[in-house]
């Protein structure tokens, strides 16, 4: 950590010199330079997706830059990386990486290269773990482990990884060139993978066709890069404008790093709802208590309600015959609660009538386990949503928490 801080100071100094210092000094006095706050805002865009995989709705994307470790010249900027508060870690599709960018492998404890399996509710992603620096806004996460999905280094996917799930190893399958996972968890797997060689997480690969599950120290795991920033490292704020009932196109917002660390990320009037160790809080919907989570990577509100008909064309979404008004009471572990009202429209009709719009606050779907309420991207529209990392203080309260 000290080394990183030193490097950052060095970079900052170089940057100041490069900028020429503005007005300079008159009359022989040397003014004390006022340290400039780190630029901590990255633009978000909700458009129809990356080249070759358009057709996205409600997917918030950023551009970011990855560099060879320690280099500020051997870098590549990647657009349409999905901002995902439902996972942790930076994952990039290998097909978008330039051949000139050679990233070193991360080694397992026995010295073999590492591969990772990321398993989601509907699929898995497989590929190498590489080391890189992430640059986004003015922030730098140095020497982090990055999951390079779908590369050819280890073509044989272990059965414990695929395990009946569907491969999601391409830009088309992901509707993104990568995923910036910024959930409340600092690592993707965490302590469980540090103490046990679990199937479906990290693999040691002594040769290209032989990968076996391995333990991996938490500091080598793929994790939320924000936790590695030298500052603004306790969480994030996603701010998006509200949209009308027909949705909107070209919606832009901001991803702000840090909570209460600068003037632009103060909690303000937002209320903190603390989360349990699984990253969930309690939600009451139609008389039923569920576990709710906040996931900018989900493109609708997802919850099971057998009284709402499913769409015939827009697989996964609800298509009620007329617009429904519903509400949920969210209650944090800290006892703070809040009622959220929302509408559910017929997604087939909505998409058909507004084919060019990419952001909608009123689409929901039933592809969810009965006891989960998934506050997807529609929840984030018209709000500033704060996601505070586990175990660290953000504006005086220890995470994990969500605030809005």
């Amino acid at each position, binding site marked *: 950590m000290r080394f990183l801080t030193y490097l950052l100071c060095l970079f900052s100094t170089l940057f100041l010199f490069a900028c020429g210092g503005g007005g300079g000094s008159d009359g022989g006095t040397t003014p004390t330079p006022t340290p400039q706050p780190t630029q901590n805002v990255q633009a978000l865009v909700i458009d129809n997706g990356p080249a070759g995989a358009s057709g996205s709705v409600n997917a918030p994307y950023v551009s970011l830059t990855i560099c060879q470790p320690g280099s500020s010249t051997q870098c590549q900027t990647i657009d349409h990386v999905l901002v995902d508060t439902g996972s942790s870690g930076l994952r990039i599709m290998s097909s978008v990486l330039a051949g000139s960018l050679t990233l070193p492998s991360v080694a397992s404890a026995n010295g073999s290269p590492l591969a990772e399996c990321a398993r989601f509710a509907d699929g898995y992603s497989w590929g190498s773990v590489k080391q890189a620096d992430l640059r986004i806004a003015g922030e730098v996460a140095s020497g982090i482990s990055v999951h390079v999905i779908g590369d050819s280094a280890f073509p044989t996917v272990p059965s414990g990884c695929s395990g*009946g799930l569907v491969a999601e190893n391409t830009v088309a399958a992901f509707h993104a060139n990568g995923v910036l996972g910024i959930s409340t968890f600092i690592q993707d797997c965490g302590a469980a993978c540090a103490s046990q060689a679990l199937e479906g*997480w990290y693999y040691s690969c002594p040769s290209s066709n032989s990968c076996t599950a391995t333990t991996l120290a938490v500091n080598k795991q793929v994790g939320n890069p924000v936790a590695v920033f030298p500052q603004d490292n306790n969480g994030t704020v996603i701010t998006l404008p509200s949209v009308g009932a027909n949705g909107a196109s070209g919606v832009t917002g901001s991803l702000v790093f840090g909570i209460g660390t600068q003037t632009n990320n103060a909690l303000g009037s937002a209320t903190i709802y603390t989360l349990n160790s699984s990253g969930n809080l309690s939600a009451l919907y139609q008389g039923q208590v569920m576990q709710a989570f906040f996931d900018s990577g989900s493109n609708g509100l997802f919850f099971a309600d057998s009284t709402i008909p499913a769409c015939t064309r827009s697989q996964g979404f609800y298509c009620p015959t007329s617009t429904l008004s519903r509400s949920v009471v969210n209650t944090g572990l800290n006892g703070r609660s809040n009622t959220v009202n929302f509408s559910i429209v017929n997604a087939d009709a909505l998409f058909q009538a507004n084919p060019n719009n990419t952001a909608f606050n009123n689409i929901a779907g039933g592809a969810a386990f009965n006891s989960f309420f998934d506050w997807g991207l529609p929840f984030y529209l018209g709000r500033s949503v704060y996601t505070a990392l586990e175990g660290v203080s953000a504006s005086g309260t220890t995470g994990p928490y969500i605030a809005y």
Partner: protein
Amino acid sequence: MRFPVSVMCALLFAQSAPAFAALGAAAGPAAGTVQADSVARAKASASARVTSYNGYTVSEVVEPSGTTVREYIGADNVVFAVSWQGPSMPNLQQLLGSYADQFAAAASEPHQGRRAVAIQSDQLVLRSGGHMRSFAGSAYVPALLPQGVTPDNIR
């Protein structure tokens, strides 16, 4: 210290880890071929807690990842439902057995709603959702549901 009744039952009926069976297959030693994976899993995990209900039993195993997997076994010893909850997705190939292909087909269909899968057919009803570190889902075969058992019993 008082235990809920269900825990008491589980303690009373606790058995050594049975061979894990797949949805639609016979549970226990009668399950036939035991896959190497499930043997490893049985060794690595705590013994299954078996709880008896009216007309069926629930065999619950906590996997090494911390995910709880439940098998619902009818009086005919056939697994009519499975469910899971925890930090890692379970191996659905093992859990769903001959129904795994139906899951894969549904999950690979182009679906605009992301991050979750639902199947509602005469052969299989399945829901899978959640986020990294917190997954949950269930699957059952409608034709195999014992009399008096409703989908609400599967948790």
